[in-house]
C-alpha cells in the first residue's frame, strides 16, 4: 500500500513536471515538482519512501534530460532520505513546517547537484542565486497546494456527501 502510494505520488509529480516544463522552459523561473513529490513522500511515509521516490524520480528526470544518468537520482535520493529522517525525528505536521522542509530540501538538492557536477566537470558550474531563490519559492507554493489539498480534500468530500444525504432525507420527509 505504501509502495503503491509512493509510486502514485511520483507518477503524478512526473506528469505534472512534464506539463510544467513546457511553460517554465527557457524562462527565468523554474520549479521541480518531482522534488516536491519526493519530499511529500518522505514526509508522509518516512525515509525509506523518500529513498524510493528520490531514486525513481531522479532517474526518470535524468533519463528525460541530456545530463549524466544518476546525478539527479543520487541528489534526490539523498534529499528524500534527509527530508524523511527529519520529518520522522521532529514530527512535522503543520503545513508551514512542511513547506519549510520543502524549501530547505530544494536548496539542499540544488547544492548536491552543483557539488556533483563540480566533481564530474572538475570546475564550478555557473550558479544563478536568483534562479535558486525562484525555484525554492515556487516549490514552496506547489508543496503548500499539495499539502493543503491532501489535508482538506477528504474532509470536504465527506462534508459534501453528508450534506447531500441530509438533503435527500429532508426531501423524503
Amino acid at each position, binding site marked *: 500500500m505504501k509502495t503503491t502510494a509512493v509510486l502514485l505520488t511520483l507518477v503524478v509529480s512526473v506528469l505534472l513536471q512534464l*506539463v510544467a516544463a*513546457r511553460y517554465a522552459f527557457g524562462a527565468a523561473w523554474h520549479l521541480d515538482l*518531482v522534488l516536491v513529490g519526493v519530499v511529500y513522500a518522505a514526509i508522509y511515509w518516512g525515509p525509506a519512501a523518500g529513498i524510493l521516490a528520490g531514486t525513481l524520480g531522479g532517474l526518470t528526470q535524468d533519463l*528525460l534530460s541530456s545530463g549524466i544518468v*544518476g546525478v539527479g537520482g543520487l541528489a534526490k*535520493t539523498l534529499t528524500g532520505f534527509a527530508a524523511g529522517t527529519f520529518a520522522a525525528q521532529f514530527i512535522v505536521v503543520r503545513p508551514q513546517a512542511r513547506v519549510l522542509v520543502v524549501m530547505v530540501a530544494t536548496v539542499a538538492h540544488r547544492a548536491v547537484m552543483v557539488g556533483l557536477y563540480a566533481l564530474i566537470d572538475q570546475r564550478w558550474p555557473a550558479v544563478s542565486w536568483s534562479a535558486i531563490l525562484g525555484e525554492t519559492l515556487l516549490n514552496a507554493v506547489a508543496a503548500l497546494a499539495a499539502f493543503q489539498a491532501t489535508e482538506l480534500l477528504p474532509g470536504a468530500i465527506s462534508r459534501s456527501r453528508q450534506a447531500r444525504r441530509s438533503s435527500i432525507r429532508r426531501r423524503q420527509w
Partner: protein
Amino acid sequence: MFATRRRTLSLLLIVSLGHVLLISVQVQSKTGAPMLEAVPFAAFAQLQRATGAFGGGISGAWNHYIALGGVARENEALHRRLTELETALQGEQAVANTARALEGALDLQQTLPVTTLAARVIAFDPSADFLTVTIDRGTADGVGVDMAILAAQGVVGKVLGHPLAHAAQVQLLIGRNAGAGATLERVDAEGVVKGGAGSPPLEMSYVSNAKDVKAGDRVLTSGHDGIFPPGFPIGVVEKAERGSGMFRSIRIRPAVDFSHLGVVLVVIDRPAKAAKPADTPAPPAGRGRGGL
C-alpha cells in the same frame, strides 16, 4: 525501531552506491551507453508526445476560446508590423541584389544554401540543468546526430544522441556542454560560443584581448565546427571585458527566444567545414555528453 533505521541506512547506502557506479560508467566512457539512453528515451518519447499534446491542448483551448480579450488590439498591431516589415523587406532585397551583383563582379564564392525540415517541439527538459527539447522528427525524416537546428531568429542547437524514427532530442545552445564555432561580424574575430553561462546564458571564448569588441556587436556562426552553417545569428554581445589571460571575457544575449520554441528547422544537409584561419586558437574538445 533500531532495525528499521539500520535497514533504511543500508538501503540508502546500496542505492547511493548504485548511482555512483552508474555515474562512473558514463563519465569514464564519455561516449555514453546507447542502450541506456535509447531504450528509456524511446519509451518516454511517447509519454512526452502525449503530455506535449495535453499541454498544447490546454494552451490552445485557453488561447483560442477564453483569452481573446487582446486579439483585436494584437491584430491591429500585427497589421502595422506587417506593413513595416514589408517595407523593410523591400529595403533588404535591394541590399541583397546589390551584394549579389558585387559578388558576381568579384567572383566570390556563393554561400551554399541549406536544406531544412520543419519540426514541432513536443516536449521540454523537465530539469533545469541541461536544456534539451524533443522534436517530432527523427531518422525516418532524414534527421541525424549533430544536425543543426535553427529558428527564424537564429541558431537553436543541434540533434543529440540517438534519434528515433519519429522523435529526436535537441541540445539547445544555451545548455551546459553546448557550443558552436562563432565569429564577431564587426571585428572579424573568431571564437567558440558556449552555453550554460548563467545570465546571459552564452559566453564567447578564445577572442584575443587585442580585438575591439563592444556591446551590441552581432555574433554569427563561423561554420568551423562542421555542424552549424556559417552566417546564422547566434546573438548580440551584451558585455565585453578585458580577460585576465590572453582572451576577452564576452557575454552574449541569444538571438532566439528559447522560452517560445514552437516550430524549428532541422538543417538536413551538413555544411562543409569552412577553412579555418591559421591564427585562430584551437578550442578544446567538449566534455561529457553532448560536447562539441
